[in-house]
């Protein structure tokens, strides 16, 4: 019985451990230098754990990517069709993070390889 309990605890600990490893990997990905491009919100959704999400698409080096981000606190700006700057860790194009505080007007186009620095749109207009 005691053995079974220990196995059970080990099993739950391993679930948490797998999560921690995934988290550490992700943290290391986001420490990479970034490039910036433009993403467009294509869908607002919710996960099984009731997380409100904005799903957005962006392109880099001619390839299209989709990702999602919790839009809590940004519901008023995170609307379908709106465009924002997306910051992408170099070498991990799938991990692009939408920046809700960096809206982009419709006339602006990003270079295919993205910007190497956070763009200043006043200069681009």
């Amino acid at each position, binding site marked *: 019985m005691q053995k079974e309990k220990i196995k059970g605890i080990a099993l739950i600990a391993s679930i948490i451990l797998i999560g921690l490893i995934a988290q550490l990997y992700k943290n290391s990905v986001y420490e990479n230098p970034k490039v910036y491009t433009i993403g467009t919100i294509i869908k607002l959704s919710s996960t099984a754990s009731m997380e409100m999400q904005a799903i957005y698409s962006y392109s880099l080096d001619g390839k299209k990517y989709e990702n999602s981000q919790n839009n*809590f606190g940004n519901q008023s700006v995170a609307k379908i069709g709106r465009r924002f700057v997306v910051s992408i860790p170099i070498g991990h194009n799938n991990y692009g993070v939408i920046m809700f505080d960096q809206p982009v007007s419709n006339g602006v186009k990003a270079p295919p390889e993205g910007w190497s620095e956070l763009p200043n749109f006043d200069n681009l207009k």
Partner: protein
Amino acid sequence: MTGECPECPAGTIVLEGVTVTASRLPQIDYSNWASSFNPIMRNAGLKYKRGDKKWLQRAFKPSNKTISWTGKVEESQWSKDFRGAVGGIYVGVGGAMLAAFASPVLLEALGSSSFSFSGSFSVKAIVTRTVIEAGSQTLVNVVSNGASGWRDLDVTNVALSASGLNFVGSSIIGSTTRWTPFSQNSNSVSYLGNGITGGQAITGIGTSLFSGGQRSLMDKSSLNKGLVNMFDAFNHTKAKGVGETINKKVLNK
């Protein structure tokens, strides 16, 4: 019979005979269901063994008793859903339905006897609870957000479900925190006031106290509430036993 018949002779019409047919459920030996792996079937079997015919009647009997011109009894949605679930894999009705039945379906699909629905701390029981929680979450996320939806797995809820600790504290933790380490975005940890609204947390606490978190999945679905309550009760039985929960939450006794 009433109605106008201009060509009929006046007076009483004597009909030689009227046959009304209605569809019948097949004769099933429900006692075998008590040992079924499917929790829905198992609980129906337990009800049968305990002689609770009323419950079984309610489960299988159509609520609408009118006989249509086609001679078939209109089947209630509740009954349809129930029989769909009992029948095994219920697909083609959309993501919501699929999600609601995810738990038994997942386990049946795995077709293994290495699962246990007991609330114990055995490896079998922990694996079962993990599969149910992670599988249900993944299914809902994939249906709503596409193939990459698996990345939105909330590990907090998986770990809490795996522990089988259906107590107030676990409900509060599960409803006020969210940890999605596999997601490809920077904010993988959310908590009350930072990614989770008070309303969401209260809903989550209320429902998970009862169902261990599964209720929130089903509230998103278009299932009728009777079935949701029933399924909830089955989830609850993972830790708390069958009888009282069914009575209180399904039959409102």
